[in-house]
């Protein structure tokens, strides 16, 4: 059983040795992640786990991958995407240029979903999709736009439920159990590492999506991150969060108005 003090030691190592700051991640979940890694990799003692982490930069990759949750899917929460299609994207159509930021994009499934939505609205040509994550390995996967074939049935159902009217399989070519999404979708994507804990605002956006990332942060880090987003959203721009995340505990709440049921807020102040 891993104790609270052990968690503190590992977090300290990660910061001192590698500069990754996880101290304001939600502790209960972080403890689970560290315990899981410790058990999976069968360390005889916690001291040996720490020694490996500190002395082997190759093992750091595994730890970062183990501590951060990379679960994602295309058109996740289809009704959210339906709201994007019908209520959000049309209000951006008149702009000369549309800038979107996917913060914590993981392996990029939601970025490709957004590109499909924009393409179908005839807006992809004048859009830019910035996609960031702290983990360079997931960004590498996202850049390739290659996903497992087995998931396409679910994604196709999600796509249709989100209001998609094309043949979903027209967007990719399948080979050896993988699918590669159409290059034209990726043309407007810019992938880059960005750490919400330590990095700053880098542009102004019409829409920021950060879904199921804030749940892994404590309230203090959530507040910092939401302020970073607030600095990065233009007036009348939008912020979209995960289905169980909220602005209710944040100081920026007063400047935003939530759109009916979905977790999308518009900056009004």
């Amino acid at each position, binding site marked *: 059983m891993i104790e609270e003090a052990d968690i503190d030691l590992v977090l300290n190592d990660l910061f001192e040795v590698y500069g990754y700051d996880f101290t304001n991640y*939600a502790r209960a979940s972080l403890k689970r992640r560290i315990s899981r890694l410790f058990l999976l990799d069968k360390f005889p003692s916690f001291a040996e786990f720490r020694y490996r982490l500190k002395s082997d930069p190759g093992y750091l990759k595994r730890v970062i991958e183990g501590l951060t949750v990379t679960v994602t899917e295309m058109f996740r929460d289809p009704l959210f995407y339906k709201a994007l299609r019908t209520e959000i994207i049309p209000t951006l159509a008149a702009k000369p240029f549309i800038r979107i930021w996917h913060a914590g994009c993981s392996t990029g499934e939601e970025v490709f979903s957004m590109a499909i939505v924009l393409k179908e609205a005839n807006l992809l040509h004048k859009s830019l999709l910035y996609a960031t994550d702290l983990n360079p390995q997931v960004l590498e996967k996202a850049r390739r736009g290659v996903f497992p074939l087995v998931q396409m049935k679910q994604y196709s159902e999600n796509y249709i439920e989100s209001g998609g009217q094309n043949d979903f399989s027209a967007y990719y070519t399948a080979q050896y159990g993988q699918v590669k999404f159409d290059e034209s979708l990726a043309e407007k994507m810019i992938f880059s590492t960005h750490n919400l804990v330590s990095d700053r605002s880098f542009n102004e956006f019409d829409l920021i999506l950060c879904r199921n990332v804030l749940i892994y942060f404590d309230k203090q880090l959530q507040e910092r991150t939401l302020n970073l987003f607030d600095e990065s959203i233009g007036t009348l721009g939008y912020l979209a969060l995960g289905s169980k995340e909220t602005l209710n505990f944040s100081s920026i709440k007063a400047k935003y108005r939530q759109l009916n049921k979905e977790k999308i807020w518009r900056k009004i102040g």
Partner: protein
Amino acid sequence: MAENRLTTSFKAVVIGGSAGSIEVLLKLLPALSSPLPVALMIVLHRKNSTDSSLADLLSSKTMIPLHEVEDKDPVITGAIYLAPADYHLLIEKDEVFSLDDSEKVNYSRPSLDVTFESAADVYGSSLVGILLSGANADGTAGLNLIKTRGGFLIAQKPETAQAAFMPQHAILNAPIDRVLDVDEMAVFINSLNRPN
């Protein structure tokens, strides 16, 4: 001494259930008296769907406020909380909920073990863990940790459960304090923290 423990000092009750446990809750919730003496958390294996009809259904059976949890909601005594579909439900030391969409545990998300273990860390001996009807082994490991931390364990009487495997598995593999039917569970929860 045991009786003394039973009437004082509990802060939270976590109920975990799988197949056949919604029916139990539909019977249990109307029998709970208001104000509830603890915070009551419910974790159910449920279909992966984001609609909130289960919360509406359970809510319609009680006057006690019932919320489907959103991230960082505070845990308040007297309220009932339902774990949302497709997220693990965790509790932080400062008694706020955290949600987690990482890999399934025991083929389940939410997993009963995950919430039992997290609650055990926060509430120690002031926690009651209750395991209801179900057809798999999720929950037993979590109940064991609750006991290690000094908490109190209840399993649904297997012969009253639609799916007896889960409570039976816990009775065989964890130091269950009481094996109760649904009416007895309601009496037990209503009596918590009340001198008699």
